[in-house]
């Protein structure tokens, strides 16, 4: 009898674009747009992001030359947004990738380790997951000073146990399959088996997880820079733009609405992408949800 | 009492059950027999209005002259439990795991009578002794997981008869149970239906068991009634080729009532398996697995009257002692 994996994270059959889940298309579109905007900022922005223009302060939305208006220094809001997208993506890409690599390795190692070590590390992972990333960031900011570095390190520290936790269960399930025993029978080493047999089988889980973590990282980055613990001036950041807009909410409410919408769109995009990928990789399971 | 006419249940465009005519008279015990996936559960769930949400139903089901199809969930709820009781398939999954047994039985009582919650206790104890459960104090305070499967099924039977219904529907009530207690549960259902004068629809895949419990048997396949008649006649002189196949598959058919359950585990199946929804052949739905297939089997098969009380739908039936 053929034993089948309980949840199928095997490769799906190739689907036509129209057959893809809607959430995947919408999420992918939003994320793609975001990435394009962030990349665009390296070659072109509507205005210089730092130059101060005192004559054109607090221009409303749809002003001539400034589609989204200007802030209290007369800087173009659209430019600030584009630069903010760059910072947001930079922080989330770096922190997510680093923590995914470390977390996955840790997860693989723990899953293949003996029961006692597994117990100890799993306990530690549980504790790690429970500590909010923002707290870690604040402790770090006290130690090394506020800035992107503190934010990124904090997110990494918080995400490592999160991603390890996601990997451990499925890895153990794959390791219990017959063909893994066979591979060990050939005399393959533990890491060879983990990389060549386990990793391909759980890759879809990791990809989905990455998308979800991107979304969370964007939220944390925004929160941290809102609190003044993240990116420091003159680096543009959505969270800090909001912080600066807070005392001006009666004069220029649009300054507050626009960056918030940018955050919502970015987070929504990655969340939908994650949902869509999950459906794409595992339609049966997703239909139940 | 219960009359089903031209019932048709469809899910996503596929017909899962099609019944021209089925009747249960007061106090009568009807057995619905067929392999799993034959649509027999779907038929009984349609009677109670408990079919899946995605199913659509046409035709007519009347109970004491009242049409059940098209009734609102609220009106249907008044009939469920009070006029028709259900003994479910898997007792271990059919009780709310987070509510004490006593409260769940009391719910069955208070829903259909003026008895207040605090006064229901006496009736609950009466029911518990009716289903031959010992130590009512312990049972009442227990949560489902603290009881055995057999005890849980007794509790569910107690709920089903709480309002003295006119009819009981038992949907494979012993399939999920340990072989050793199957016989006791069957005996209990039979005894209760006799004592209380309840009609019974007994759904099972074991023809041999149904023979001892029911007066009449309907053999179901692919949602169609293939053969219907008095229990002993259907088992001893089957008319439909499918019935015959079902009987010969049932090698370990119990000889006496006392044997029920003892050898149920030895059941064997007919060659091939029940096709997936929507892949049944035209005409006779069984013909792709039937060794007696003739060309006419590809045509629609009407219900035929064999001798007054017996009906079948087979193009090439077994001739009596031919």
């Amino acid at each position: 009898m053929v034993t089948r994996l309980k949840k199928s994270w095997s490769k799906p059959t190739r689907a036509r674009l129209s057959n893809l889940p809607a959430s995947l298309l919408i999420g992918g579109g939003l994320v793609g747009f975001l990435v394009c905007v962030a990349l665009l900022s390296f070659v072109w922005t509507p205005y210089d992001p730092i130059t101060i223009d005192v004559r054109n302060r607090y221009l409303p939305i749809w002003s001539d030359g400034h589609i989204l208006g200007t802030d209290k220094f007369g800087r173009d809001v659209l430019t600030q947004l584009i630069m903010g997208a760059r910072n947001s993506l930079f922080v989330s890409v770096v922190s997510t990738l680093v923590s995914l690599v470390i977390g996955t390795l840790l997860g693989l190692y723990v899953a293949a380790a003996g029961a006692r070590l597994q117990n100890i590390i799993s306990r530690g992972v549980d504790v790690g997951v429970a500590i909010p990333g923002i707290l870690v960031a604040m402790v770090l900011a006290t130690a090394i000073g506020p800035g992107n570095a503190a934010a990124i390190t904090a997110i990494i520290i918080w995400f490592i146990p999160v991603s390890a936790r996601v990997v451990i269960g499925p890895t153990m399930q794959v390791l219990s399959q017959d063909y893994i025993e066979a591979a060990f029978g050939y005399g393959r080493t533990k890491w060879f088996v983990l990389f060549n047999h386990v990793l391909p089988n759980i890759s879809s889980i990791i990809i989905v997880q990455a998308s979800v973590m991107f979304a969370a990282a964007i939220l944390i980055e925004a929160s941290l820079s809102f609190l003044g613990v993240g990116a420091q001036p003159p680096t543009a950041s959505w969270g800090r733009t909001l912080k600066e807009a807070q005392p001006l909410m009666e004069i220029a409410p649009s300054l507050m609405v626009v960056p918030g919408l940018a955050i919502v769109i970015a987070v929504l995009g990655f969340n939908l992408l994650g949902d869509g990928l999950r459906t794409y990789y595992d339609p049966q399971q997703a239909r139940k949800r | 009492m219960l009359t089903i006419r031209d019932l048709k249940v469809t899910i996503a465009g596929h017909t899962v059950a099609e019944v021209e005519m089925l009747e249960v008279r007061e106090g009568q015990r009807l057995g619905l027999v067929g392999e799993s996936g034959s649509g027999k559960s779907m038929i009984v769930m349609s009677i109670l209005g408990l079919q899946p949400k995605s199913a659509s139903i046409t035709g007519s089901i009347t109970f004491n002259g009242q049409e059940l199809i098209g009734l609102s969930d609220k009106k249907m709820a008044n009939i469920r439990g009070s006029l028709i009781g259900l003994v479910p398939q898997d007792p271990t999954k059919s009780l709310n795991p987070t509510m004490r047994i006593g409260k769940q039985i009391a719910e069955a009582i208070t829903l259909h009578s003026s008895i207040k919650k605090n006064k229901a206790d006496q009736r609950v104890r009466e029911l518990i002794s009716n289903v031959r459960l010992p130590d009512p104090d312990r049972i009442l305070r227990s949560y489902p997981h603290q009881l055995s499967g057999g005890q849980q099924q007794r509790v569910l039977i107690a709920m089903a008869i709480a309002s003295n219904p006119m009819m009981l529907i038992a949907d494979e009530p012993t399939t999920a149970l340990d072989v050793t207690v199957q016989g006791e549960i069957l005996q209990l259902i039979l005894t209760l239906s006799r004592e209380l004068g309840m009609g019974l629809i007994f759904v099972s895949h074991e023809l041999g068991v149904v023979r001892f419990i029911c007066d009449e048997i309907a053999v179901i396949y692919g949602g169609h009634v293939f053969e219907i008649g008095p229990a002993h006649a259907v088992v001893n002189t089957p008319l439909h080729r499918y019935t015959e196949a079902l009987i010969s598959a049932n090698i370990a058919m119990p000889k006496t009532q006392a044997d029920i359950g003892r050898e149920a585990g030895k059941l064997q199946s007919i060659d091939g398996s029940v096709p997936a929804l929507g892949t049944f052949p035209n005409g006779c739905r069984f013909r792709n697995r039937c060794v007696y297939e003739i060309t006419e089997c590809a045509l629609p098969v009407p219900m035929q009257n064999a001798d007054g009380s017996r009906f079948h739908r087979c193009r090439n039936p077994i001739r009596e002692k031919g």
Partner: protein
Amino acid sequence: MVFALLRLLGGDVAYILLGKEATQDQVIALRIELGLDRIWFVQYFDWIGGFFSANLGTSFSGSYEIFDQIGQRLVPTLLLAFGSLFVSMVLALFLGTYAALNADNTKGIATDIVSQIGTAIPAFWAGLILVVVFSVSLGWFPAGGYVPIQENFLGSLRSIFLPIVALSLGITSVTTRFVRSAMLDVLNEDYIRTAMARGQTRNRAVFVHGLRNAAIPVVTVGALQLGNLLAGTIVIESVFVIPGLGQLLLSAVNGREVIVVQSVVLVILLIILVMNFLLDIAYGLLDPRILDKRNGA
């Protein structure tokens, strides 16, 4: 652990405090004054001992007693955190159930889309928008600040209403999605069908027999949300200028007051622990099977 993190990465606290121009002598003098010349574990026990004997000393700037300050600021933070936890758990149970019952029609899909968007809205932005709409434009609620609950009960509720709404939004959305999927599983359970067979309508059967069962996995998920909840509390305090632990922490971070940061973080972690413990108790109360397992029966 908090202590270790700060010590490992912290560099020289005295050096940071005095700035780059400080002379070597000044640094050494300050280190002795702060007790930083001692071995690390002596410092650690000193701190932990101080923490539990209600004596953490005064802050570097000398303006306040750290322990008293934490005590004062605990109440608004607890109100916010527990208030939001309660509001979002209850709301999510009903919204998620509604979404599950209507999973195949537009009402359910709409609930689903709203909760998906709600998950993406950062709490502080929701707070800002609420202030613009309900305080600045409509004037229904104060835009910020906190009225102590012992002074004016209604005024206090008014002052924390918007913060709780802002904080609950995201957590309600996430939890709603979990309730929905838990409820979809429960709807397919045989005991719902049996309850209907006893004479319950579908909606009543789900309400009477489904809610508690669906709440069990949700409580587990709720425990994982606690970190986010407290993180949100810190941010929301900043939006609404509520003098809670988050504000204290923030000012301590900016002033590099290590002892204060350590202590506040420890208090917040303790709050998470207590909430976790409470949810654990709730879990045991919801599911009788757990109790039997724990008793070894």
